[in-house]
């Protein structure tokens, strides 16, 4: 059934349907509506979870780690500074292979302080071992939560997952979203049954100290599990499509790609605006397409290289910047296309909530056609 609802509330409802047993979260804009809604569900008996009101995001994820280790399906949500405060725990959760799912309402990182959207927060955790899904709209943001739990808890993966969606742009926007019913979700996402947990009946040690004799192998296994997650994501996406009709099995998704000469590559809500801009450019006869990245970790380098093989030039829309280098997406794409000879132009765009409009996308395409790239798009020269 389609419901007209705020993105955060739709996500909270999807999380409820996933039946988390322990939730620990801390308020931070623009994520707060989600955890408020979940607290309300617990307070009214609509969600049978233990909701821990922690004193910081650092403790939120630490409590989730403990709950997951003891054998509970565990959820949190955060953004920006909160995610930065979790940095140390994020690496730890992945290293210890706990399948916690966390919603990220993407927001810029200070300084200067900004509550508005870009993707610097989750991108900055790209090396931490978490799966990273990016949603274009609220339907996708909602659906990716069911898939994220399913993939994270798969015994071949056992890694935590971020479900990322743009703060305010999606989290605070009302859109029609089709919500699932509990029986169907239960069928898609069975109860969490970890092979190993903290249990007095079968004592094991978690989080031991490693000498140089073993550390390298631990890191290899995490990396392998994250790469192997690709086929699990594809399978989980296919089954979701069979059961619910919406197909998220592809790690990347093309739009007017077949004959496109200039291909924009982007993640998140900017893909919607880009598709509209492409429609208008196509009407003018411009051969422009989009490749949307749905899964950033594991990075689908081969899928991407295949999808972009016919392009004359690539224009990457990066809502992040690896300061002193380039946007993270562009770096990955250059790596994936190495040796192809296809030029990749990077555009740092929309940071800190700067609006990105259709005309901006068109200007980016024009710049790429001129061979001008690797720049911050839309700088106000008068304030520099």
């Amino acid at each position, binding site marked *: 059934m389609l419901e007209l609802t705020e993105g955060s509330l739709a996500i909270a409802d999807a999380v409820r349907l996933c039946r988390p*047993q*322990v939730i*620990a979260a801390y308020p931070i804009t623009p994520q707060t509506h989600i955890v408020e809604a979940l607290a309300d569900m617990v307070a009214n008996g609509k969600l*049978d*979870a*233990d909701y*821990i*009101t*922690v*004193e*910081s995001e*650092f*403790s*939120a994820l*630490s*409590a*989730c*780690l*403990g*709950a*997951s*280790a*003891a*054998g*509970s399906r*565990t959820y949190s949500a955060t953004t920006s500074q909160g995610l930065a405060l979790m940095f*140390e*725990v994020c690496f*730890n959760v992945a290293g*210890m292979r706990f399948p916690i799912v966390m919603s990220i309402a993407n927001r810029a990182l200070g300084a200067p302080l900004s509550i508005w959207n870009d993707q610097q927060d989750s991108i900055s955790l790209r090396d931490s071992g978490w799966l990273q899904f990016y949603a274009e709209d609220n339907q996708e943001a909602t659906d990716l939560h069911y898939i994220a739990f399913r993939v994270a808890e798969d015994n071949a993966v056992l890694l935590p997952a971020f479900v990322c969606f743009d703060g305010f742009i999606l989290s605070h926007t009302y859109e029609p979203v089709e919500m699932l019913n509990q029986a169907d979700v239960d069928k898609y996402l069975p109860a969490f049954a970890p092979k190993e947990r*903290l*249990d*007095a009946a*079968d*004592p*094991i*040690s*978690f*989080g*031991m*100290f*490693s*000498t140089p004799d*073993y550390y390298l192998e631990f890191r290899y296994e995490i990396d392998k599990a994250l790469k192997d997650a690709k086929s699990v994501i594809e399978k989980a996406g296919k089954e979701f499509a069979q059961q619910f009709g919406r197909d998220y099995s592809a790690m990347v998704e093309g739009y007017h790609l077949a004959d496109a000469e200039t291909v924009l590559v982007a993640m998140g809500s900017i893909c919607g605006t880009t598709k509209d801009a492409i429609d208008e450019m196509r009407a003018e006869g411009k051969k422009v397409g989009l490749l949307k990245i749905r899964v950033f970790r594991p990075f689908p380098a081969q899928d991407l290289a295949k999808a972009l093989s016919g392009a004359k030039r690539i224009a990457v829309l990066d809502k992040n910047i690896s300061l002193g280098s380039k946007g993270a997406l562009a770096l990955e794409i250059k790596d994936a296309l190495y040796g192809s000879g296809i030029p990749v132009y990077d555009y740092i765009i929309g940071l800190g909530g700067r609006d990105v409009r259709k005309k901006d996308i068109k200007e980016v395409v024009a710049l790429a056609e001129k061979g001008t790239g690797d720049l911050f798009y839309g700088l106000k020269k008068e304030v520099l």
Partner: protein
Amino acid sequence: MVDKDLELFDCGHRACGGCGAALAARLVLKGAGTNTIVVSSTGCMEVFSTPYPETSWKVPWIHSLFENAAAVASGVVASLKKQGRTEKVVVMAGDGATFDIGMLCISGAFERGHDFTYICYDNEAYMNTGIQRSGATPYDASTTTSPAGSCSFGNKLPKKDMPQILAAHGAPYVATASIAYPMDLMQKVEKAINTPGSCYVQIHAPCCTGWGFEGEQTVAIAKLAIETGLWVNFEMIDGKVAKVKKVVRKPVEEYLKTQKRFRHLFKPKRQDAEIAAIQAIADRNAEKYGIDIKLKKE
């Protein structure tokens, strides 16, 4: 009931000979029993007891980070509650993890009253990283970050009063214990884990390497700390002191002289004013907790 013969902390770990913390771990588990889940902080104990792929812990054990054991324990408690499980949760953390870097997580957990027992094995400095001062380091102790020198007598700051801080959080049971008094220690652990809510037990655990004494002296030195009034064994129930170990006090220098960390108070020259300042700390402890046994005049 405490089972003295129960061994849940296995031999073969990598602690120094005479390690007070290793003894504390062994005694704590005797008091806690088999139906226990241990959450450790990063530190000496975590490192010497779990060199992968070996572990000394015969109960389920988890270590995450240096500063988050209380938050991890909160999550474990929440999960067990949701599953209707009966295991008791015990945190084992050093004084650095407790007095300093873990304070935020501890405060949050004790405010929430999560049902676990937080054990701090207090060896009075960051021993794992090489004897740096912590909030638990006593006045005038020389450490690698508070070294005694021509312009310094060592650590200038007083030991932070963690038991009072946690009692002020509303902890129903707060106690101090010492590895020199094992029955008392085990009984306090047993009492703490059977008291609902967040409970705290701070265990004096001398460190031969960090304090500078021979390993066979660990228990004797722990005992001297009690006998001089520089460590007080007490119990607080609902914020009120309920039980105190009384002693016929010895002068503090009998304790200080046994350890290299206080050597600068005696050599090259005896520092009477500093020793008197430490004696005053013991005197204040004695007055505050009423530990002095008054001997009848003959």
